[in-house]
């Protein structure tokens, strides 16, 4: 069977890309192997661990459960989009750093993308809401408590910055 290829055009972190992709290429693999944006991590590759979470038109989605060809015409944001070009961390990143919200860091990009989308929609979450928002991201190091602390702190910082 000849590979089934499609031309796609999409925006990733504000940059427009045109590429030819095989239809079976997952969005997660496209980001890592074609665009060399290796910040999006690949864990389980069947939608359980959340490590590959990216934003599709601003909504957190699992990039291992989407085909690259499906991203045609859409806007994707990845963890590379969070810090400023000068290296200033996003408040969610800074809070993870301050609260020791990561150890090995493998799950961190997915958590950062999930939670930036969540905090945008829920600027003043309760601890319970933060825990539920995190439910789709597995972390095997931290026990989550420091991540929850970091997200509550990040919410405070972001509210103070744009009240």
């Amino acid at each position, binding site marked *: 069977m000849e*590979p*089934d290829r499609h031309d796609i055009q999409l925006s990733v972190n504000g940059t427009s890309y045109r590429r030819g992709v095989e239809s079976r290429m997952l969005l997660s693999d496209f980001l890592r192997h074609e665009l060399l944006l290796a910040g999006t991590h690949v864990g389980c590759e*069947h939608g359980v661990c959340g490590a590959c979470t990216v934003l599709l038109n601003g909504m957190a989605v699992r990039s291992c459960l989407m085909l690259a060809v499906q991203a045609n015409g859409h806007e994707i944001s990845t963890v590379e989009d969070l810090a400023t070009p000068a290296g200033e961390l996003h408040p969610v990143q800074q809070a993870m750093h301050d609260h020791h919200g990561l150890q090995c860091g493998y799950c961190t990009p997915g958590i950062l993308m999930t939670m930036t989308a969540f905090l945008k929609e829920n600027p003043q979450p309760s601890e319970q809401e933060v825990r539920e928002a995190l439910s789709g991201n597995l972390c095997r190091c931290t026990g989550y408590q420091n991540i929850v602390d970091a997200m509550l702190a990040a919410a405070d910082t972001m509210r103070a910055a744009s009240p």
Partner: protein
Amino acid sequence: MKPAPFKYIAASSVDHALSLKAEYGDEARFLAGGQSLIPTMNFRLARPAVLIDINGLNDLAGVDRANGESIRVGALARYRDLERDTNFLESCPLFADALPHIAHPQIRNRGTIGGNLSHADPASELPALVVAMEARMRLKSSAREREVAASDFFQGLLTTDIKADEMLLEIAFPAPTPRTGTCFMEIARRRGDFALAGVAAIVTLGEGQRCLKARLALCGVGETPVDASGALRSLIGQPCTGEAIDAAAARVREMIEPSGNVHGSADYQRHIAGILTQRAVGVAFQRAGHGA
């Protein structure tokens, strides 16, 4: 790349999607949210030769209340959209209880009601909801269109009445009746996991506080969603008492045949199903009495 090779076609209209399905039949699968199909393709448990992507068919994504007798939900409506549609949740309050239990936010951002029901996982919440609510499934092929009652739609584990050339187009829910209360509850070991058991209850009160109609369906305790409304038959015409609800819960425990799994034995699932029946039917009675 995890999935086996396939041919990808983005459908430009419902007619286009149906003509492709008529052409390729069982070789082709519709791609909606992809939250169940893509994992099985990544595992290569599913190897469709053709994927017909229906995500561009925006006319399948809406909720239509124009006809006063039913609320019609397009197959491509995503959990996320339904969760945020307060009018829909008022009309179908079981969804307000159940949607937050479905997987995780990232999954709810993509997953669709039509994909869920077509996949027909008996552990999922929505099949039990549509059975309890006596929804009707609108199926369409290039050649014909038909409606199937939810109770006839689910035929076995991951098996529905959808024919090789058909698509689930729309789900029609009956408009809410007065003095009706509903409740969905489930128990899962972790937030977002499939439930050990889940119960959807609908109670309509007649004169006084007497029960006029009662519906009950369970998820996670059989090969299909289980319609256990028969367990509530003795409540009809009666006021709601603790004893009557206990007796109904005992009948539910007898009716179901859960298989047990790594998270709990069959006996434990049966126990949970009884407890959830007591609680959910009780809450549905209360809500019916309060006009909620």
